[in-house]
Every structure is written in structure tokens, then in C-alpha cells.
């Protein structure tokens, strides 16, 4: 289980990193490597050169941008669970990051890496989808910003060009919102069979707004739009939110694999969305 040969460069600036990617079409970015290294060892991936972002300290910071929090792509899952700014304004990320894999993996894995890997079974893609975060991308011709719906394009595929790097994630502050991440798996450190990221804003005993992102319910992370619409304006009660959750699988096309049939995933999405909305509304 030794990877095939590759070259390795560790640029000290973002420009240098983009140039290294642009100069070799088989180059690949490595950050924490917790998704890429298993792929290299299984020889599912054969990059010619790894461009290690670890020298780009500017991508490690978390900053308050007023209406949003900007999270550098190299912030680790462990740091997501410990950062006070993220806990205060984007607690859904704090909660979901704490469920990723196990502590040792969380020490290495990064938010930018997890999103760029584009695994719809990963936890953070559904969270940034629910939060409608801005994904900041840098390439040879400058920067651009994509919404999650445009960033994730298919199984393990994103809109990133081979010479582009996801550099930061801007998460809008949700003041006064409750949130919850419900993850269902049957063994420790496993991927979610289905996960639900929910955020809820209550007003006068009712749900004013709800956002729901689904993990592993399609080739990309998806919003449960029908459940969101059903929750908005509903009574803030477990029964009303369970009823809204029962619409979570509408419009989804969940995968079928050895761990779960598609119908079972639909069932899980409905039940877990009810639970996540109820918890996010502060009712459980």
C-alpha cells in the first residue's frame, strides 16, 4: 500500500501554488491529506506532483468580516470545533466538524480539503450548503466566488479547475438561529449513511425560517427545499417540525450501496430532518 511515485513541492505563496498547478495538468493539491492519502495508497489517484499548501499560513486564519466569518481553507476540523468566532456565529460548523471521522483525523483534515474533495457523504459539504456559504477560489486569472450549489457538481467532483485552489469559506453570521447536525451511522468513525444539517430561526412561537442541507442523499449535497418551505411559518412544535421533516426526501436521488438502499436513505432523511429541525428550534 505504497503510493505510486510523485514529485512534491511546498510553495510559500498562493501565486506560486497556482503556478505549480497550472504548469502540470496532473498536479494535485494536498492539504491535510486525510482523503487524498488513502486514495494515493490504494492507487486510485496518480498525481505527477503534489502541491502542498502547508506553507501558506495566510490560509489558516479565522476572521470576523462583519456580516460573515471568513475561514481559511487550511483550518482543520479540530480547529473548527475549538474556534470561538465559529462557535459564536456558525455553531452548525462546530457541531458537524466534531462528528467527522475521529480525533486524529480531525487534527490533520482541513475544511478546504474536505470541500474540494467534493464527497457528498462528507459532513461539511451539507453544512456549507445549508449555510449558503461563499466559497472563495483563486486561479491564474484571479479570484472568484461560488455558492455551494454551483461548486459541487457530481460525485467527488467540483467546479474547481485543475489550476484553482479553494482558499476561504465565508459563512454568513446567523444571529439568533438555532442549529443541529444529525448524523446516522452504525459504527464509530464511519461516514454518515445520511446526515442532516439544520438551522432554524424562531419568531413568536413559530418557525420564521429554516435551512436544511442533506449529507449523502445524492451525488452532491442538497437542500431539502420542500422541508424548508414546510417548516417556514409552522408552529415551533415537535409535531409540526416532524411533519415538515417528512418532506425532506422530496426531489432527492439518494445513492444505493452496501450500507443502505435508496428507500432506507429516504426514510432516514425524513426522520433525521424532523429531529434536526426540532433540535435546532430548541425543542429537544
Amino acid at each position, binding site marked *: 500500500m505504497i503510493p505510486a511515485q510523485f514529485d512534491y513541492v511546498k510553495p510559500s505563496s498562493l501565486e506560486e501554488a497556482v503556478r505549480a498547478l497550472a504548469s502540470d495538468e496532473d498536479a494535485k493539491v494536498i492539504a491535510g491529506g*486525510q482523503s487524498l492519502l488513502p486514495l494515493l495508497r490504494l492507487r486510485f489517484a496518480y498525481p505527477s506532483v503534489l502541491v502542498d499548501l*502547508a506553507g501558506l499560513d495566510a490560509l489558516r486564519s479565522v476572521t470576523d468580516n462583519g456580516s460573515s466569518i471568513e475561514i481559511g481553507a487550511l483550518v482543520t476540523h479540530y480547529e473548527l470545533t475549538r474556534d470561538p468566532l465559529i462557535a459564536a456565529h456558525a455553531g452548525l460548523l462546530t457541531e458537524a466538524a466534531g462528528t467527522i471521522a*475521529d480525533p486524529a*483525523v480531525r*487534527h*490533520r483534515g482541513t475544511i478546504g480539503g474536505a470541500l474540494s474533495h467534493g464527497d457528498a457523504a462528507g459532513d461539511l459539504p451539507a453544512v456549507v450548503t445549508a449555510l449558503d456559504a461563499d466559497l472563495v477560489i483563486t486561479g491564474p486569472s484571479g479570484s472568484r466566488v461560488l455558492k455551494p450549489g454551483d461548486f459541487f457538481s457530481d460525485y467527488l467532483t467540483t467546479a474547481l479547475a485543475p489550476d484553482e485552489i479553494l482558499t476561504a469559506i465565508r459563512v454568513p453570521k446567523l444571529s439568533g438561529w438555532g442549529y443541529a447536525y444529525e448524523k446516522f451511522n452504525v459504527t464509530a468513525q464511519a461516514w454518515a449513511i445520511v446526515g442532516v444539517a439544520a438551522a432554524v430561526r424562531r419568531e413568536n412561537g413559530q418557525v420564521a425560517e429554516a435551512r436544511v442541507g442533506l449529507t449523502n442523499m445524492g451525488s452532491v449535497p442538497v437542500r431539502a427545499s420542500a422541508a424548508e418551505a414546510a417548516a417556514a411559518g409552522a408552529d415551533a412544535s415537535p409535531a409540526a417540525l416532524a411533519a415538515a421533516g417528512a418532506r425532506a426526501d422530496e426531489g432527492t436521488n439518494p445513492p444505493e450501496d452496501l450500507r443502505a438502499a435508496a428507500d432506507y436513505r429516504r426514510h432516514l432523511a425524513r426522520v433525521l430532518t424532523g429531529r434536526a429541525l426540532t433540535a435546532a428550534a430548541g425543542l429537544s
Partner: protein
Amino acid sequence: MRISVTVDGVRYDDDVEPRLLLVHYLREHAGRTGTPIGCDTSNCGACTIALNGRSVKSCSVLAVQADGADITTIQGLANGELHPMQRAFHEEHALQCGYCTPGMIMAATDLLKDNPDPTEEQVREGLEGNLCRCTGYQNIVKAVLKAAQGVKA
């Protein structure tokens, strides 16, 4: 590629291939065969070490990524006498075959850094990345709780 790392307090300078995994570097270049290779798929945690003070699975890190790092393996934990976690594993008989033990101990010491007084559930959660196929975890959990008591006292 040239790398410099400090392993258990000793500095090493070596030329390595970029594809060399850190666990292979530690075992074959630095002689730290106390760190075993278990599943080789980053599931089992047997190869867990401390990289700059935090637990990582050394089968999932390239040696070149560790350039400049300070590494502690199971062999660097004892300081004249057994580390309290090693002693607790010994006293609670927290092993049978012993294969997972180096990784368990490294993960457990890291767990107590963040949470010096964990509940039983927190210990079980904190060790979720480390698999033991012999003990059913019972004595491992007891050992970590005992070590935590010792650290507090």
C-alpha cells in the same frame, strides 16, 4: 527530498522519497518499530503518534509533510519510568495481544490534554479512531480513567 525531524527528542536529517509514509519513515529510518502498521487504511489507529503535540495517524501523513516537525512516538513517552498512561494500561491489564496499544496510549494521552477529567463516554468517543480486536475496550477505558485520576492528583 531532504527532511529534518525531531523524533522522541533526537534530531534526524534524511533524504526521503516524497511518497514515503511517515510511519515507514519512523520504523525504517528512525528505528521506531514501537509504532506498528495496522490496517494501513487510516481506520485502526495503531500507528498513532504525536505530531507537534497532536495525535495523528502516521500512515496518513507523508514524511515530507512532517519536515520540521517535533514527533513523539510510544518510545519517547517514558522518561526514566513509565508514563502514567503506560502504567495505567499495565495495571488495568488494558491489552491482550498489544498490537493496538502504542496507538491507544498515544491517542489517550492526547485526549487528556484537551479533557483532563473525561467521563467514560468521553473516553470511548475520544478513542473512536483506535480499534482493539481483543479486549472489548473495557480495560482500556478503565486505564484511561485511572490515568486521568493520576494526572489530576
